[in-house]
């Protein structure tokens, strides 16, 4: 179903949009199942698997041991042999436990086999800081995944996209990471009933503007929008682009915008050094160099692990204020 033809919509929090996305997939794909730590009886620690065990039974909603390598291997082996697994990795930070299965097996198997294997596996995982969960439960590691040929990576910023991208990811015949954001779980908005897709690899212009382009994804989109609202009062008209996917990345939409605004700011929650913002910046200046009136600037986390104390975490995470500050710098105000 195209994004245009939206069915009945109701207010739904992000967490329940995730739930509906998984539910639609399990309904339409008989080869699909979801497996992960505490997804069945507990309905996931975030609650987004609530009710799935009841509707689909224990064969299709599967609690696993605390064995990330095993779980991810399950996704590789089951997807290569005809299933369409949804693998739940509770926190994105735990990817270190199964990076081999993700990077060396899941992402590469098709290529290594000369195209003869197909791995329609979707991994759901939760990134982001904000809840004082400290250094091992708050990271944004999408840059690792986006650097992996064979892998797709999307980061839905809101409930509508979360549901639609989960469905798109599960219908896709490639390994796809859907990186969710735990600080967005309670955010509500109108979400249509029934299945719909939000295409992978397509950015979305969230706000039209003429003075500069702000590129963000995941939860940072909302900070960017809030910043844009306030910037308006300062007479600055910012265009905000939600990249939505980081692999593949929709360079065209970003570059087109910048050809209009001549200035760009890239925002992400991950630490700045080595974050995907560098890649985006590099691409922008490669493709729109002559249109740029100022360097592409980045707003991202400083170079430290995520701190526990709310006093520190608050200054750690990029927000509307730090975005505004950087915009002023970019515009030399």
């Amino acid at each position, binding site marked *: 179903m195209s994004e245009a033809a939206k069915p009945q919509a109701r207010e739904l929090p992000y967490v329940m949009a995730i739930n509906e996305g998984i539910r639609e997939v399990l309904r339409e794909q008989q080869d699909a199942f979801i497996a992960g730590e505490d997804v069945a009886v507990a309905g996931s620690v975030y609650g987004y698997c609530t009710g799935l065990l009841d509707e689909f039974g224990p064969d299709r909603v599967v609690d696993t041991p605390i064995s990330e390598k095993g779980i991810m291997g399950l996704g590789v082996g089951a997807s290569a042999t005809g299933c369409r697994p949804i693998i739940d990795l509770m926190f994105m*930070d735990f990817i270190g*436990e199964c990076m081999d299965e993700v990077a060396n097996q899941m992402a590469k198997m098709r290529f290594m086999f000369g195209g003869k294997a197909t791995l329609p596996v979707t991994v759901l995982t939760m990134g982001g800081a904000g809840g004082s969960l400290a250094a091992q*439960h708050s990271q944004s590691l999408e840059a690792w995944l986006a650097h992996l040929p064979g892998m797709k990576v999307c980061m839905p910023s809101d409930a509508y996209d979360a549901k639609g991208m989960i469905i798109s990811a599960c219908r896709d015949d490639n390994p796809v990471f859907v990186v969710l954001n735990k600080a967005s779980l309670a955010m509500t908005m109108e979400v249509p009933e029934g299945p719909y897709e939000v295409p992978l690899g397509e950015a979305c212009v969230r706000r039209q503007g003429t003075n500069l382009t702000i590129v963000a994804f995941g939860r940072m989109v909302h900070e960017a929008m809030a910043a844009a609202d306030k910037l308006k009062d300062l007479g600055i008209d910012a265009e905000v682009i939600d990249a939505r996917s980081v692999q593949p990345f929709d360079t065209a939409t970003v570059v087109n915008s910048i050809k209009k605004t001549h200035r760009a700011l890239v925002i992400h929650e991950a630490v700045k050094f080595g974050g995907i913002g560098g890649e985006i910046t590099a691409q922008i200046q490669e493709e729109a160099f002559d249109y740029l009136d100022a360097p592409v600037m980045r707003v991202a986390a400083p170079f430290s692990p995520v701190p526990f104390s709310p006093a520190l975490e608050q200054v750690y995470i990029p927000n509307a204020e730090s975005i505004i500050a950087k915009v002023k710098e970019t515009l030399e105000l």
Partner: protein
Amino acid sequence: MAAKKKPAAKKSPVKKAAAPKAKTAVAKAKKAPARKVKGPSDKVLKEMHLKMVRIRRFEESAGKMMEDGKIPGALHLYVGQEAVAAGVMQHLSNQDWITSTHRGHGHLVAKGGEFKPMFAELFGRATGYCKGKGGSMHISSMDLGMLGANGIVGGGPPIAMGAAFSNKFRKNKNVSVAFFGDGASNEGSVHEAANMAALYKLPCIFVCENNGYGEYTSQARHQAIVDVADRAAGYGMPGVICDGMDVMAVYEAAGEAIERARNGGGPTLLECKTYRYYDHVGVRGMGLNYRTDEEIEAWKKKDAIEGFEKRLMQLGVMTQKQIEAVHTTVAKDVEEAIEYANESPYPGPETLLENVYNEKGA
């Protein structure tokens, strides 16, 4: 009742004390009355009692502080499992290392952790053990030989194995202890650490606190075995099971394993059957769908502190009054510590980029 255990030769079947199994707790709860045969001294008994009371009080209060919004983030309470930390740590000095889990306050308290910097850390203050940077899941004290709680399930054992390697390398008599849960036993990291510890005969004790659940998944739904200690034979180390609700059983079993390790006898896998009273995270306990209230009540009947206090009185080690005095003192300590934490400053933003690297002055 002391645990039966066996410094087993390779492949000898694991021997078990009459420890209650998670699923048959009620049936097996009946225990023989305590005897004191060449057992621990009165001093040791009192110290273990104090450790347990300190843990319990700390945790109960931390739970309240969390509910009051004073403690942000995730809080995994150790209440119910006190006998394990107390019984093991009784054998350790500050020169011995431990690695802990996400459920780490109890281990730190038993290792000598002070309430003030502990509460301050949980409150996210600059006066905390980690200057507010670590919080509950990373609370640690290098001075006390506590290599940190760990947010990663299975994160501790490889580090403890490395610390044990370090001890062996420096030819001292110190040991390291890795605490981990039944759920963690399914992580590859535990497997690799155990194999290496056995191979190198490292002074490393693997203490599995089997509380029957990994989060909301019961042991029967996360592994096809009943005793994690069964895995010891596959590494070539002794596997021992003891009643993790009985501090004397833990003390005896741990003592033997630690003694063996200190004397070059290599690692042991010690499984302590225990239970957590509250929910996996936070303070809610009853009325949840993944375990029954009856099960909780049955385990509480074997409460490590209550039972031990009766025994202490039976044995004439402590009077009711003395016991009450301990509780009173500890409660006061807790109160003072909370006040201290509450009045402590938050870390300043300028500290954010400190301690990332160890450079001159950083």
